[in-house]
């Protein structure tokens, strides 16, 4: 049965098994490959997308969970928080290999959207589920604080 939902502001309809992970649909059916497959078990955060504005693991969200809802991927993030994060990431040259960074950026936007001036403890709690094998955690933390400086709140 076809399932419709909004992806980055555009209505999309796909006709696949409703239990298919959203990650699969985004990458294989909609060709939005910015969202990465890391572990497939919700352990690494590489597949973070926003579902109705909140970060979720797209490897664990079934397509049927997204029916009629708004999905935002790394390709579609917009707004002052996304711009602040993007600028801070570039300014501090956060990325090394980059594989995890989609999830890191989506998580950082999710955090700063809800807590404009996060403490280190807030960052620990909100970013703990995002792994980085290049160990860029230090620069990610600095970049979140840097982005927060440019945001009202």
């Amino acid at each position, binding site marked *: 049965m076809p399932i419709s939902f909004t992806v980055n502001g555009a209505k999309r309809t796909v006709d696949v098994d409703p239990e298919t992970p959203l990650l699969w649909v985004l990458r294989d059916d909609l060709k939005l490959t910015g969202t990465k497959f890391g572990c497939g078990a919700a352990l690494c955060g590489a597949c973070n997308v926003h579902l109705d504005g909140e970060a979720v693991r797209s490897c664990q969200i079934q397509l049927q969970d997204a029916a009629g809802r708004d999905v935002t991927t790394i390709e579609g993030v917009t707004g002052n928080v996304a711009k602040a994060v993007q600028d801070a990431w570039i300014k501090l040259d956060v990325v090394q290999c980059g594989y995890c960074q989609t999830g890191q950026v989506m998580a950082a936007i999710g955090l700063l959207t809800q807590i404009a001036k996060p403490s280190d403890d807030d960052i620990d*709690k909100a970013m*703990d*589920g995002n792994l980085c094998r290049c160990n860029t955690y230090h620069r990610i933390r600095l970049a979140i604080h840097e982005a927060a400086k440019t945001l009202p709140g």
Partner: protein
Amino acid sequence: MKRPTRWNVLITTAAVVMIGLVLGGSFGGWGDRQSAIVPFASPAEAASGSPELFAPVAEVLRHPRCMNCHPRGDRPRQTDQRHLHLQNVVRGIDGMGFVNARCNACHRDENNSFTGVPGAPNWHLAPLSMGWEGLDDAALCTTLKDEKANGGKSIAALVEHMEKDALVLWGWAPGGDLKPVSTPHPEFMTKLKAWAGAGAPCPQSK
């Protein structure tokens, strides 16, 4: 017939007692004897308001399916081994996780047969006031009944909660490799109602 001597009577009595002990399996210590008594919540026991009526309820509440999300700290536990929840998940201000690590970021309305991640409606941690880990039967019973701790639930509301709440019922159908609560739900409800009907008596702390 030869009349039994006092010595014969003594030996016979001792033998009967020993056979009874062996058949009763009572060599396992005080704890085993307690658990052997507990499952038989007869109407007579219910009528007497026996504090032992709570023991089979406590046994269910201590099952990993229940206890994992009734921590006395900020971190839930996982699996039958009850290790701390991976991803360093914490309860957050509403018991549904912190930013980016909300319970429903992974736990949806039903078990995920594709990934094995469990799910049920309204997945969340119990409030800190309903943390059960490490409580003996007396403290567990008292906490369960405390309306200031349990969200204002009367005994009747507690029974209804454990009879109908979808997240509670998930404990009997957890999917994947997770073991369901060992006492079947209808049997648990019979014992819970026996306890509630007897006035919800709590055992004394040992």
